[in-house]
């Protein structure tokens, strides 16, 4: 199963979907772009169909009731005009991927954005893991910053923090901030939850903070998993070690969108959020928001 998006040019991104209106992806009213492909495989992922990239196996083509998928030149081709969004293709995909992700040019993203810009604070690119397509991100954000109708929009990424400092350095001139998920306090749990090591995430958090680009660090509160005293102490110790005034946002775990295996965990209660907030505050973090 491939997780790394392949596109024909840096001015094209593999885009899973977009939202014209979001209140929950950073400050203000924001346009949200979901990129396809993630190098984590989180059990609690709320958008699991954005993890794997289509490998053109073709299983979904027969599964589509509306003939919105076909095979051409060994590639699966998606026909948006025939799709009614039933998502059967995702359910039949052996990789739980979406064949509906589209190679999209920067200009195709900018055009609708111009019309909506007066209503927006900015754009947030999420996914998937957006920084897997860092070339495209640089192109997209450069285009936004140099367009007179769009340049006032802030550019944010919602990231798992695995991009290298070299990558952040390229993005930094056109990036207003990164919201980084730190999924666990201890490396062992991080490996269990994400399938990946925690160190690169810590490196990113330090680098982004040092360059004034750390918009917030997020913790997904899964009761009985990420909210134990031991986990919270380790989490707070790392974040507070970088700076106690880093904005922290606690995220609620919900069943909607998740894979069946994750639903053994309960959805996060209000009480748990308050308890975690108080715990992190007691550990010295000064800007914890629920």
């Amino acid at each position, binding site marked *: 199963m491939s997780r790394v998006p392949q596109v024909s040019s840096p001015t094209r991104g593999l885009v899973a979907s977009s939202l014209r209106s979001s209140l929950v992806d950073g400050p*203000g009213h924001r346009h949200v772009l979901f990129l396809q492909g993630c190098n984590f495989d989180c059990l609690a992922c709320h958008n699991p169909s954005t993890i794997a990239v289509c490998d053109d196996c073709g299983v979904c083509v027969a599964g589509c009731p509306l003939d919105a998928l076909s095979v051409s030149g060994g590639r699966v081709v998606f026909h948006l005009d025939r799709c009614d969004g039933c998502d059967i293709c995702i359910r039949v995909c052996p990789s739980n991927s979406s064949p509906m992700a589209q190679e999209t040019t920067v200009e195709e993203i900018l055009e609708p954005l111009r019309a909506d810009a007066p*209503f927006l604070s900015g754009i947030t690119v999420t996914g998937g893991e957006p920084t897997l397509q860092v070339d495209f991100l640089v192109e997209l954000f450069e285009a936004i910053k140099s367009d007179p109708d769009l340049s006032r929009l802030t550019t944010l990424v919602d990231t798992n923090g695995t991009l290298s400092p070299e990558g952040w350095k390229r993005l930094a001139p056109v990036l207003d901030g990164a919201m980084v998920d730190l999924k666990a306090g201890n490396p062992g749990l991080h490996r269990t939850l994400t399938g990946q090591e925690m160190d690169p995430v810590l490196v990113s958090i330090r680098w982004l903070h040092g360059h004034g680009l750390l918009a917030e660090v997020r913790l997904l509160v899964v009761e009985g998993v990420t909210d134990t005293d031991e986990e919270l102490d380790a989490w707070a110790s790392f974040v507070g070690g970088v700076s106690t005034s880093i904005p922290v946002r606690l995220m609620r775990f919900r069943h909607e969108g998740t894979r069946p295996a994750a639903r053994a965990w309960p959805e996060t209660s209000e009480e748990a959020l308050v308890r975690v907030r108080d715990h992190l505050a007691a550990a010295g973090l000064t800007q914890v928001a629920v």
Partner: protein
Amino acid sequence: MARMEDFRDSAHRLVTTPNLSYRQRLHQLALLAEDALPYPKLSHEAESALESGIVSDLAEGHAPYRPRYTVPDYSVALGGGSEYLEMEPARDLEDAVTNLQILYHNVPSITSYPVYFGDLDALLLPYLDDRDDAALDGLLTRFWRFLDRTIPDAFAHINIGPTDNRIARSVLRVDAALAQVVPNLTLKWDPATTGDDLLEMAARSIAAVNKPHIANHPMISADFPEGYGVVSCYNTLPLGGGSHTLVRLNLKESARAAAGDPGRYLTAVLPEHAALTFEVMEARIRFLVEEAGFYDHHFLVKEGLLDRDRFTAMFGLFGMAEAIEILLEGARYGWDEAANELADRIVETAAHLVGDRELPYCRQGRATLHAQSGIGDDIGVTAGVRVAIGSEPEVLDHVAAIAPHHRVFASGISDIFALDGSARSNPRAIVDVTKGAFAAGMREMTFNVEGCDLVRVTGYMVKLSDIEKWKREGSRVASTVLGAQSVENWGLLGRVPRVISHEDMGRSFTDPVESRLVADRDSLPG
């Protein structure tokens, strides 16, 4: 003699309805007596149009003896005192607040209470001394309690802005902290003077108490260079005047006469029904001015707080969503280009008809167009020119569909945007959407944020917790009764958040305490 018996029965029911307060019983009895008088003389056609519901006078009463809405220029009496009230000019902030309280007690409107408390910051700023914010908030807190407890009617508005000033900020702080139904609140917004800071403060208030309503000041000022007040349900009316009457044309009922034939509707049926609406308006205005003589004798007119020549009359439209479905089979207003274009043409035609028809005793000799935001017993007909409940497009498409209408509705138009509770932790989003909407040509902007106890019904506020209480023991707030009816009829409770703000068809009214007596006659001021 049967009518006399009906009258006695109704009066008896009123004076014995346990959920009505003394004041509410008194008001209802007055309305009952008014309706025992004959209606102003109308043609047979206009009478039938009222009867069939094509034209609705919102149960304003048979013998108008006060204007529907008054927007007094209180600054006249604050600065110059009042001979009639034996009131000296105000010398300090305490004087100003007390004098306003006295004036409110003497301001008539259709609700029997004032609908406009003034642009409070502009009124009080000349008297503001060097007291600190805590002292100022304390004064306004007491003032707010006075308003809510003595003028229990959520159609009554305080306006603030467009400048950012200490009074406006204190108003927002106090209003959000108290979360009262009264006063209703409007912030006038001007990109040149308001500033994002004050707008964001207002957005935080909206996230907490669904107030204030926000008005596009440059746009409305262009229509009313003499000044304006935002009152009742999104009505923008000339300062120092108001509106003699509000009569509304039910586009849904009207369109039935030309089902499937938009061309005939625009050229024949709409003009015919508009003419009947104007006839009802003229008859009511003439009675108010010529027979009741309100403008000849009332001290507010004599002392210059009101001026007859600053009164308009409101020509209301409602039921656009259903009218489009009747005229264009299969069309979906808010979604289809053809449907939206037809709505544009209906609005333009109505605007021309209003511009062509001279009305006596009206500012500039004309009525003003108003998108009427509904009353509780509108069943199966959508308010104003709104997209029907439950079929609203996503917010940006929604604005694009309706913003073009806003230009011509000089006396107000409402569209309520529902936001989920996540707006509470992201008030900046409310600022963004508001600015975008005003840039797109929206005249006014209102939000209902999910999870607030205080919600906006048509334009007025109601506490959801009060409705349950009212069913048991009545409410001291007159408008809660109306809110309860809307909640029943439109299914406002228990629906997805976006729906809470929009009127819709619902089941027929079933009322545990016969409040229909109240709601029918003490109808929403619009």
